[in-house]
């Protein structure tokens, strides 16, 4: 969809402000469900060079020296108002697609790292990734049916998270719940950005660097 209403004639109109938010977490944790609860999911594919771990998985016969593989991502858009739009990108869950993350995360406002308490370790790599790069994130605990419920503090402690990083309970199938997780992320990112502008607010180099 195109943006309407920008002033094309003089070139002085307000260009759209676009905001990128990533939905990360392990394979099968509910990233696609979350994006789909918030907006219409649209397919986005990219042809990427074959990485070593994938080379044994992709069929190499029939195509002369096939050196790329197709990676499909979930992609959705939330229009806040004309010319102010959030783009959601579900990061590819399999580890062999990690090389795409740097490009995806460049310029991102932040990320929701979805966690499943039955397989908590699956979200460790995402948590590490965003921590190391100073990209604001919140942990969304996707409350699956039948999974034992844990308190946010228990999850925080299991993930060894900085106390300032929000842990929110959510149900990826429920729009209001996903919306609240997204709000928690934007508010957290706002806080992190403020602290970076004025480090006196917060001296933790892990968050202010």
């Amino acid at each position: 969809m195109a943006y309407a209403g920008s002033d094309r004639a003089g070139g002085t109109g307000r260009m759209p402000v676009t905001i990128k938010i990533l939905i990360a977490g392990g394979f099968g944790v509910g990233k696609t469900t979350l994006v789909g609860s918030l907006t219409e999911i649209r397919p986005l594919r990219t042809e990427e060079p074959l990485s070593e771990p994938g080379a044994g998985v992709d069929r190499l016969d029939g195509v002369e020296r096939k050196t790329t593989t197709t990676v499909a991502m979930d992609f959705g858009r939330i229009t806040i108002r004309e010319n102010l739009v959030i783009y959601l990108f579900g990061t590819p869950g399999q580890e062999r697609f990690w090389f795409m993350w740097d490009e995806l995360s460049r310029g991102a406002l932040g990320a929701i790292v979805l966690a499943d308490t039955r397989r908590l370790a699956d979200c460790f790599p995402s948590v590490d990734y965003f921590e190391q790069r100073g990209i604001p994130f919140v942990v969304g605990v996707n409350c699956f049916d039948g999974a034992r419920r844990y308190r946010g503090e228990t999850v925080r402690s299991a993930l060894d998270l900085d106390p300032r990083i929000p842990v929110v309970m959510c149900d990826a199938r429920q729009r209001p719940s996903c919306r609240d997780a997204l709000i928690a992320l934007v508010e957290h990112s706002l806080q992190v950005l403020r602290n970076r502008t004025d480090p006196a607010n917060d001296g933790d180099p892990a968050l202010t660097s």
Partner: protein
Amino acid sequence: MPSPDDHWLDEEAGPVVRPYALTRGRTRPTGEALDLIAIITAVRGVRPDPSSLGPEHRSVLRMCRLPISVADIASELDLPLGVVRILLGDLSELSLISIHHPIPPARLPDADILKEVVDGLRRL
């Protein structure tokens, strides 16, 4: 003798062309990497030389009559991002499009925009 896998018909998609055939084998755009959420707008009043553009260039150019993001173009045209970036690089070299790079979050004009985002999300 061609193997059964060499046919040109994808089971669902009909005729297929290897994506980078559209870009004459190029796999990297010429200019700087375009962000997924960069906004592209066709430059008005410039008539492209018909011989310089392939059908995919024209499709992309048509989509950019109104400002549109790189991700939206790739999704709407069902082309891989890498291919769309190369096509956009060509169009940019021909001065047929203008590119509006996204503002990094740290340099958003003011925090009010993010507050507006929060308010907007609450209304969802």
